[in-house]
């Protein structure tokens, strides 16, 4: 059992590109769900349209990289408007239904054979990130002591954490303002907000677009980290894991998604490595009659589920949340 290796793997995920992607996705969900009370179950869809907007612009349509970024952000914004327009006047559940369906529809359409020329079908798209990697200031593998990052990962990670920091700053600035107060009030009771002369639909739409744009940033990070994308990068479990990150860190807290992402990936990666170490090799720690090494790779998800359940019971407000806010919850 190589504890050093397990720790290194865990830290590599917790502070590397994986955590960046989920931190950004969860920041978006925090704006939606944490602050405004919008149940967006299609964050993967926002990530997908942004990533494919970027990749297809560059690879299929031969546009410059920065135009691709604008196309990606624009696509996420348009998706938010399309999803919000029919559902935001209705009860919260309708947005949940529509977003989860839309995300799946997008994933299947993007992977379809008909659109293979644009989106590359099941194989996805590659070689769109040359302009990005050309800017890489690192000359080789970056060793941070606890763990090391490859040259490409180091660059993506650096850009990613800067984006996370800027996003958090923006969310912080917005949520302490009267604008943020209206969002939080909508989460509590939208009829009360209406009765005080606020255009609730407009605010919800703004929140949906803003959170979708954070999702777009997460989509860009997925694309750039892998330098290739395919439809399976954006399946529904991405959204659910992002929710797990948000709940773990604490909803409606600026740093909740960031802390949540770090802890989530530390545990997922650390436990994954631990169990594959413990169940594999010539003399496994865990006897093979109990668990084979293929089974071992899935145990972390069982533990994740149990851990989230325990969290909900013992600390429902998440790590950063305020217990008082939950104790008086009427629902």
């Amino acid at each position, binding site marked *: 059992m190589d504890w050093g290796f397990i720790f290194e793997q865990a830290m590599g995920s917790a502070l590397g590109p994986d955590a960046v992607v989920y931190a950004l996705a969860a920041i978006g969900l925090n704006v939606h769900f944490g602050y405004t009370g919008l149940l967006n179950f299609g964050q993967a869809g926002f990530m997908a349209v942004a990533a494919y907007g970027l990749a297809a612009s560059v690879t299929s349509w031969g546009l410059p990289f920065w135009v691709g970024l604008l196309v990606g952000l624009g696509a996420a914004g348009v998706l938010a408007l399309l999803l919000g327009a029919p559902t935001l006047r209705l009860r919260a559940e309708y947005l949940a239904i529509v977003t989860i369906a839309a995300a799946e529809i997008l994933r299947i359409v993007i992977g379809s054979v008909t659109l293979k020329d644009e989106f590359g079908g099941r194989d996805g798209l590659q070689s769109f990130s040359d302009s990005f990697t050309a800017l890489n200031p690192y000359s080789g593998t970056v060793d941070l002591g606890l763990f090391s990052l490859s040259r490409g990962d180091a660059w993506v990670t650096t850009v990613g954490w800067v984006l996370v920091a800027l996003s958090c700053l*923006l969310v912080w*600035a*917005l949520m302490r*303002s*009267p*604008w*943020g*107060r*209206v969002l*939080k*009030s909508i*989460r*509590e*009771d939208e*009829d*009360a*907000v*209406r*009765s*005080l*002369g*606020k*255009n*609730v639909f407009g605010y919800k739409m*703004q929140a949906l677009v*803003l959170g979708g744009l954070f999702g777009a940033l997460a989509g860009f990070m997925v694309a750039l980290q892998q330098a290739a994308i395919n439809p399976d990068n954006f399946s529904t479990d991405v959204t659910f894991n992002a929710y797990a990150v948000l709940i773990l860190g604490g909803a409606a807290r600026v740093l909740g998604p960031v802390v949540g992402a770090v802890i989530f990936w530390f545990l997922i990666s650390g436990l994954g490595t631990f169990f594959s170490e413990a169940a594999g090799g010539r003399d496994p720690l865990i006897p093979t009659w109990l668990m084979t090494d293929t089974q071992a790779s899935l145990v972390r998800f069982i533990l994740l589920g149990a851990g989230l359940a325990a969290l909900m019971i013992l600390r429902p407000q998440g790590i950063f949340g305020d217990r*008082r*806010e939950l104790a*008086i*919850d*009427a629902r």
Partner: protein
Amino acid sequence: MPAEATGSHAASESVGTTGTTTRDHDAILVGEDVIRRFGGLTAVDVDRVEVKRGLITALIGPNGAGKTTFFNVLTGFDQPDSGSWSFNGRSLKGMPPYKVARLGMVRTFQLTKVLAKLSVIENMRLGATGQRGESMLSAVFPTLWRSQEKVNTERADTLLQRFTLDAKREDFAGSLSGGQRKLLEMARALMVDPDLIMLDEPMAGVNPALKQSLLGHVKGLRDEGRTVLFVEHDMDMVRDISDWVIVMAQGKIVAQGPPSEVMANPKVVDAYLGAHHDSDVSVEAEEARLAEVREKLEAETGPRDREDGDPRE
């Protein structure tokens, strides 16, 4: 045009004959032929209703009379099947509730709607209208809205003091008692600075001590020049503070006038207690029937010894 003129003339005449206090007040809110149906049920069917500026008007009626539905329709929270209604001469037809509120017509709710996870002062600040910081772009730059926020906070603090909630300033609104929530909702509505404030059952679930102070607050609203329309079941309150009473039953307005007059109106008593409420329960009727039965018995069996005695002799 002529029809309209005679309509308003007739209305003002009826006001003139029923009370002198209301003579000088024009209508701030007018509704005509407002009909709201839920499937086969006609919840509201109002020919004409007027709320006079500067007065406290009570809207009363038994449960299911359509008072709250009518409230919802007037404030834009529900759309009627037909009819027209206007506030300060401006038609509100098809107008969403937030625009109605911006015109200066603010309502509260029967089930109090405080924003539980926001502090009391934040609840109050939300009420202020025309906030620059409520636009997404300027929200990022506090210099654009900080001074306005300060003014709003000072106004909020004054109102909290008036409604005796200043001690609760930093508490979560969800930790307030039912009565305090009613007070907060009323104070928050005042942050909008409305001409007309519509209170949906302000006394429901409030203890008698707080009721008195709430009554004072409602009177205070009128004294500072606002118009009040409230829905209430508590007849004492209606009699005590309202200048004008509108009675609804089964979706229609059955009577209106000054409280003393309306309370004496047999139609109102019927609406509240049922048309035959006094036919079988009076003592005289009961005794008359008893005497009748006794006579019959005596005729059949002859006079009997009055061992148990007749209580009336």
